[in-house]
């Protein structure tokens, strides 16, 4: 009986699913932005060019049948037929993943603005938002000036007792390579492997202006309009959530300034360790 049971465990289901591990590479320019500078009163008085991995937004990666270089002003996955005239064709990804995801970082002003794998600790978050001209404030509008206050708020908000419970701080995803570009490891689990498929993706670059800071640090792939609402006494806000179908209809999410895959990452073997280059910057139609 035991032999029979052990034989059953060896049954090969022939499911063509593969867990891929690869590397996504972003050019240095993708992490380089023009940021405002401020006078002693906090008013914008100039600009500075800054290269910082915290300026890298969430990266969405998918495996597709092929690349369509004609339908958009950037390389885009091949699409199925258009069913609804207001929506592009479904790109039918074979699998997908992301490098970094949206996480609610304890204060309402940070909804849809914080991505995992970009910040080392609380002070790192506070320093970044000061840098882009949107200092973190509490629910009463008072600026948060030190990490310990921030930590206390997070422990209170999430009923947490350790920093390990905070997904938005910790190890950073990206490291600088020898060419001065930035790269990170990605894992794309349960991907339906088809020889010749293409791995492609895009980075949603944060809105950033050196002149007006109102929208600095926001993303187009995150929405505070739907669901995920919190009602805490007189505070009503949304924690924010990623828009759906970002890999099925990527053109609905890609906006000017985002970095897009070059479409040259062809996967021929289930043992491949694909390298996806997001080297194309979409600069508008």
């Amino acid at each position, binding site marked *: 009986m035991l032999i029979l049971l052990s034989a059953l465990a060896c049954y090969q289901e022939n499911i063509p699913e593969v867990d891929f591990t690869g590397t996504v590479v972003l050019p240095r320019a993708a992490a380089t932005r023009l940021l405002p500078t401020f006078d002693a009163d906090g008013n914008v008085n100039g600009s500075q060019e800054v290269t910082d991995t915290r300026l890298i937004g969430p990266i969405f990666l998918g495996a597709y*049948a092929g690349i369509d270089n004609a339908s958009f002003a950037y390389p885009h996955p091949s699409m*199925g*037929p258009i*069913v609804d005239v207001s929506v592009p064709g479904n790109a*039918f990804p074979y699998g997908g993943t992301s490098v970094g995801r949206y996480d609610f970082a304890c204060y309402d002003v940070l909804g849809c603005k914080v991505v995992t794998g970009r910040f080392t600790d609380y002070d790192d978050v506070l320093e970044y938002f000061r840098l882009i001209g949107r200092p973190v404030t509490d629910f009463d509008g008072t600026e948060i000036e030190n990490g310990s206050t921030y930590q206390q708020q997070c422990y209170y908000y999430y009923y947490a007792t350790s920093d390990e419970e905070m997904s938005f701080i910790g190890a950073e995803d990206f490291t600088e390579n020898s060419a001065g570009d930035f790269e990170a490891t990605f894992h794309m689990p349960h991907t339906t492997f088809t020889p*010749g498929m293409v791995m492609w993706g895009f980075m949603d670059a944060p809105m950033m202006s050196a002149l007006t800071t109102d929208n600095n640090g926001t993303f187009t792939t995150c929405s505070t309009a739907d669901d995920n609402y919190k009602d805490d006494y007189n505070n009503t806000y949304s924690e924010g959530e990623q828009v759906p179908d970002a890999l099925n209809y990527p053109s609905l999410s890609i906006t000017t300034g985002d970095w897009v895959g070059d479409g040259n990452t062809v996967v021929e073997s289930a043992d491949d360790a694909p390298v996806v280059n997001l080297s194309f910057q979409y600069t508008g139609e």
Partner: protein
Amino acid sequence: MSLVFLSLLGCDHTGFEFRPAPSDAPPVADLGEVVPLDVEEWKSGGRDPFAFPESIVYAEVGADENPGNVTGATAHFRGTGGNVCLVVDPEAVYWARSLAATGAGRYEYDDDFTDDGDIDMDAGLTAFYTGSPGVQMGDFKSAYTDESGVDHEIEFNACIQTGYQGAADVHAGRATAEQCVVSTDQQAGTEFTVALRTFSLPLNDSKMGFAIGVFDVGDAKCDGVFENGADAECLFPNEGNAGAEGDRTGIEAAYCEGAKAVNEYCAEHLGDENPPCNEPTETYDGGGASVDTGA
């Protein structure tokens, strides 16, 4: 020996008695072409469903000899270039009895659920419909083969039924009207098919009356089809008898008046040969206990 005995127990009934029985109602009906009714004409006409027989059609469907076959009906309309609102109301009327002993607007009697059917809508370009009208039901699913030879299912159904809160892809259920909006943008004059798929037939006679209305609503949705706050159930009366008055006419009218009228109607007609309501078996006293009413 015990195995043989147990296997015999499994043969003590066939389950056939729970199958809907074929009747004079067709298992798959084709209602032909239905003309989208201008919603302003509908409103100015007093929302009288019997005044627009080209746009509001009453019909019946029944069971198939083969219980594995999907039953239902099809209707066809031409695209207007704008939005088309589809409303279907299946036999007869359904309410949920309130267990609470007090409270305004509560239904005291149980609905007779054996007179209730359920039918759902899909709609899309006729070219994508896989069924044969009047013969076999189909759907709007198709396959797309990508450039690597991998097949993906594509759904060409353009009729997404919505619920009370506007939630998409909702099925209202037993005897309750369904509605959806189909965009015919850039497809004026192109033929669309509505596939009405039977979800369940009434248990009492295995045939279901229903009414379907097709409205030209321009750029709007279905809101103008209904009077403010009106229950969709009250749009097409007598759908259970294919438009004629019958034994559910009274309870449907009472339902559209409100719970008080339903309670009174039920009290009067409990002794009928085919009563529209059931006596409640228990109610709730508000203090945490169920009260046996002794019915």
